[in-house]
Every structure is written in structure tokens, then in C-alpha cells.
């Protein structure tokens, strides 16, 4: 079992309260523009610009079903990389028939890369020696800004708003109470420095690269990452949750994640990965459709039957 160790944050709650206060002081100033190329006979697509802390201008894809709402909403938090899709690659585009979908490009990603264009590799360690400078402080706030915007859309059913993704889905659910459901696959922000030591694969290898070149900075890095560890966010997650754990024996399997699971006050179902994008993806879609009270899950053709 993984336990919280290493450098402790001086004031975890204060750090995030200050960040959220900074965010609240900035009007989101949304600009919404239809994207005819991505609109269909069953859904209209929009590009949305929003302001987050910094101030920094973000971009997001919004899709709204045609017809009478309100609709359940899927908020897709970005994976680690420069590209954000309207809906995740490989999922059914037909999900847009019955769901509002929202996918945010956080600072540094394409369409939100002016003035800051993130490097990959590089984003994970940008400013990591100081929690005040760490780029993820802004990124976490960006994701909260998106959640607030989505929850305020009149087409959205406020009882059915799901955050879907990796660590940023989790932090968003913790910091924005309007997220009602959470589908999360922890990846990077869980005991990060120790997790990195167990792999040479990117993006965690970025941490190893940084500490190989600057070993004297390890305590500072551990201190910064303590503000971003999902275990510290866990007591604030009240959303109904599907936690996608790694397969048994992997670094983030259900046993490794048990401190996270135990610290969460809401309903949590844990799914152990089956090393199959199809099986894990189908399980996730079926869980979400059940949780949303939908008649059928939104499955692509090859996942049906």
C-alpha cells in the first residue's frame, strides 16, 4: 500500500482556495462560435474561448444535441499531449446525439498555445521546483473554469455532469462540486516522484530526467507535487465515481490506489483494467449510461454485440 510520504504541503487547502479565489475574480468572458464543419444533423458544434488564471485565454469544443434539453453532459479533460479532440478518438460520434460534450484545451495545448506553447516532453516539469510557479496550478484551474462554464449552460442537466479523463478529471471533481459523476484513470498525479522511479516511460520519465540533471532539487519537487497528489484531493470528491485502476501488479493497480479509494466520501466503483481498450472502454460506457439512467450506452459499431 502506498502511503503519503515525503515533503508535505505547507497549506494544501489554502493553496487551492487561493487559486480558486484568483479564478473567481476573473470573469470567464466566453466567446462562442459555431463550427459548421463539425456540426451534424443531430448536434451542433461550437468553439468556446474562456479566461482562466493568469489571465490566460483557453479554448474548448462544445457540442449540443439538437432538440429539447436538458441533456446529460460529458466533460472530457485532456490527456497528456498537445492535441484535444472534439470527442475522444475511437469513441462513438453518435454520443453527441444524447449528450452535451465539452472538451477543453488547457494552457499550452493546441488552440490554447498562445502565448504559452507547451513542450511534450516538458510540460510535466515546467516550473516544478516551486508550487507557485508550477504550470499545473494553472492547468488545474483551467479545468475548473471549464466545469463551471459547462454547468452553467442552460442545455445541461445539472444532475448529470460527468468529468471523464485522467488526473485532471479527478482534481476537477474535487474542486468543482457541480461535477456529479467522475470517470477517472489516475496516471501521473499520484505519488508522482516514487511512481516515476518505477518506470522509464514518458511522461513520468520527465521527472526522472529533471532529477537526474538536478538531483539537489528532489525535495523541492516532492514538495511541489504534494500539492497535486490525488490523495489530498480525495476527501473533496463527492461525485459518483468509476475509478479505472491498472491491472493487478501494475504501478497503479487497485491495491496501490486503495488509500485514494478509502479517502473518498462518495460512491466509488473500481474497475481493474483488462489490457483492452475495448473491454475497458465498453465497461466505462456502460457504467456511465447506467449512472445517467440512459436506455443504451453510446458504443461505436465495433463494440456492439
Amino acid at each position: 500500500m502506498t502511503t503519503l510520504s515525503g515533503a508535505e504541503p505547507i497549506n494544501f487547502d489554502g493553496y487551492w482556495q487561493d487559486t480558486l479565489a484568483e479564478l473567481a475574480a476573473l470573469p470567464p468572458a466566453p466567446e462562442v462560435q459555431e463550427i459548421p464543419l463539425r456540426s451534424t444533423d443531430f448536434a451542433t458544434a461550437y468553439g468556446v474561448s474562456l479566461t482562466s488564471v493568469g489571465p490566460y485565454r483557453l479554448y474548448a469544443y462544445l457540442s449540443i444535441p439538437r432538440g429539447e434539453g436538458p441533456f446529460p453532459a460529458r466533460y472530457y479533460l485532456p490527456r497528456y499531449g498537445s492535441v484535444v479532440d472534439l470527442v475522444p478518438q475511437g469513441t462513438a460520434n453518435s454520443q453527441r446525439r444524447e449528450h452535451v460534450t465539452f472538451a477543453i484545451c488547457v494552457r499550452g495545448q493546441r488552440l490554447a498555445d498562445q502565448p504559452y506553447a507547451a513542450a511534450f516532453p516538458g510540460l510535466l516539469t515546467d516550473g516544478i521546483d516551486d508550487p507557485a510557479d508550477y504550470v499545473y496550478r494553472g492547468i488545474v484551474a483551467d479545468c475548473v473554469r471549464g466545469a463551471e462554464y459547462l454547468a452553467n449552460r442552460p442545455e445541461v442537466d445539472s444532475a448529470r455532469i460527468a468529468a471523464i479523463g485522467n488526473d485532471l478529471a479527478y482534481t476537477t471533481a474535487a474542486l468543482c462540486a457541480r461535477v456529479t459523476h467522475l470517470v477517472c484513470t489516475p496516471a501521473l498525479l499520484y505519488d508522482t516522484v516514487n511512481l516515476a522511479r518505477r518506470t522509464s516511460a514518458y511522461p513520468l520519465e520527465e521527472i526522472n530526467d529533471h532529477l537526474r540533471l538536478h538531483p539537489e532539487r528532489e525535495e523541492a519537487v516532492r514538495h511541489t507535487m504534494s500539492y497535486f497528489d490525488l490523495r489530498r484531493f480525495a476527501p473533496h470528491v463527492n461525485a459518483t465515481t468509476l475509478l479505472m485502476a491498472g491491472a493487478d501488479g501494475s504501478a497503479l493497480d487497485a491495491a496501490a490506489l486503495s488509500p485514494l479509494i478509502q479517502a473518498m466520501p462518495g460512491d466509488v466503483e473500481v474497475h481493474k483494467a483488462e489490457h483492452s481498450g475495448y473491454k475497458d472502454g465498453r465497461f466505462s460506457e456502460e457504467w456511465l449510461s447506467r449512472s445517467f439512467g440512459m436506455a443504451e450506452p453510446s458504443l461505436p459499431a465495433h463494440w456492439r454485440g
Partner: protein
Amino acid sequence: MPRVPADQYVSNVRMPEDIDRFWEETLAETAKIPLEPKVVHDPLRSTERIDVYEVFFTSLDRVRIAGWYATPRDRQGKLPGLLQVPGYNMEPPVPKAWANKGYAAFSVAPRGKLRSNRQFNPGYPGLLTYSMVDRNTYSYRGFYMDACRGVEFLLSRDEVDDDRIGVTGHSQGGGLTVSTAALRPEIKAAAAGAPYLCGYMDAIELTDAYPYQEIADYLRMNPDSRADVENTLAYFDGINLAHRITCPIIVSVGLQDSTCPPETGFAMFDAIASADKRMYAYDGHGHDANNHEHGAIVDDFLAKHLKP
């Protein structure tokens, strides 16, 4: 209506009569441009065992292309070269893992990818449909050449054995593995996972998922362009390039792949000319194509042919 089993699907892709000439002319046009490689050691990404370099070279249209090059420090004699080609919406990885296995590994960032997007940046979504009505300016004409130039980069390196060069990738990387093996005879072994860019027009009937959905979006807005789109894409379709592949090759597909439908992977595989070819079709798997277990098969296959 139940779907036809993936291995029995009949592709609707048409073979252009002049496809070989088109690519020979494109390769010749590219060859006239000096490679102008720049190789810069990167101490941040290097380790005790692996040297990592940032690489830049010039490709078709004089677009400057980036890549990551990794070599093992402890070596005796020349190394096999391995070209790693990236997925559609992923960043090209730093190929330390391949270097750790004894390869001089080059991970290319074709035009439009980060660090190769100063002169050409159609974005994502966008790359797949950029100038899709004109084979002479379609995005993948240069994109395919950038991958081929990655082979030239490996050939330019003194530490690389010219007779032991392979290529591998997954998804778009699988598609680029097919196109590169088809267009560069120096490739001695190829391992393609869940290949994209095969059966483009078939795929938009088989799946509603992105990235192929980009083509459906485009045709919804531009229905009158359908014939031009079909004509262009036929020159870039892995199904139509596979007859040029003569090296040993393995291909994997997931039978529940909603991103790159397995039907298109089978159609491409059937068209491969090489007698030394093998298909690994994984039931119960989607776009991962059972990477968890198939990775060891790729390792063994490349080691057998490239001898790291």
C-alpha cells in the same frame, strides 16, 4: 444487420493506374533536396546508458522536420537502425526504450507535429483532410516523405548498419510503417500495429469515430468533392501501397477496433507482396490491438531480422 467478419470484408478502394509513377516522382523530387541534418545532444533526456539527440532535417517542400534520436552508449560495431513513426494525435516519443534494446532509434515528427509545425500546421483535427482534393498538395504527400526521410537520416549515420534498418509504429504509426516499407527498399523489417491510413473511404462507412470522421465531416460540407477526394486518397491508401512491400512484415489488429477498423487492416494485409508476412488478429481488443502482449512479438520479430 450483422457485420461481415473483418477478414472477409471486400474493400471498395480503387487502384490508380499511375500510382507507382506518382510515388517515384515524389521520391525523386524529395531526393533533390539536401537532407541538411542537424544533430544536437540533449543532456536532459540522456541517461548513463543512452545518448539522446534532437534532430532536424529538410524534407519535401523544404519543410524542416524534427525528431528524437537515441543510441546506446555501450556498443561494439555498427547498430541496426529503427525508425519509429507516430500516431495521429500523439507526440513522437523519445525512443529510449528502443535504444535500450540495442537500436539506433529515430523517432520522427512529420510535418504538423510539434517542433515540425513552423512551416506547415493544419492542426488536429485538420491534418487528415488538408487539401484532400489534390494529390499533389495533400498533407500526407509531404507527411509520407518526412517518414521516408527518417530512413535517409539513419542511412546518414556512421554508427548505423545500412543493411539492418527497420520501421515500426502503431495506429497512424502503423500506416506510416506500411507506406515507408512500401516506398523505401532499404527497410528490412516492418512491424505495423492497428494500421491507420488504410481503406480511408471504407473506414468512414465502418466507423463513426474520429479521426476518420474528419473525412465524413468534410464530405458532409462538400458533397460535390467526393470524386476528387476518392481519387486523391487512392494514391495514399495503404491498401494500394502494400503491393510494393517485399520485406518481412507483421501486422496486428484488434477485432473490436473502432478507430482503425480491422476490416481495413485485413484488406491491406492481403495486398502485401512480401511472402514473409504474418497477421496477428486479436479478438477482445480494440485500438490497443493487444499491445500488452503483442509488444514482445514485435521485439522478437525485429530482433530476428535486425539483430541488435
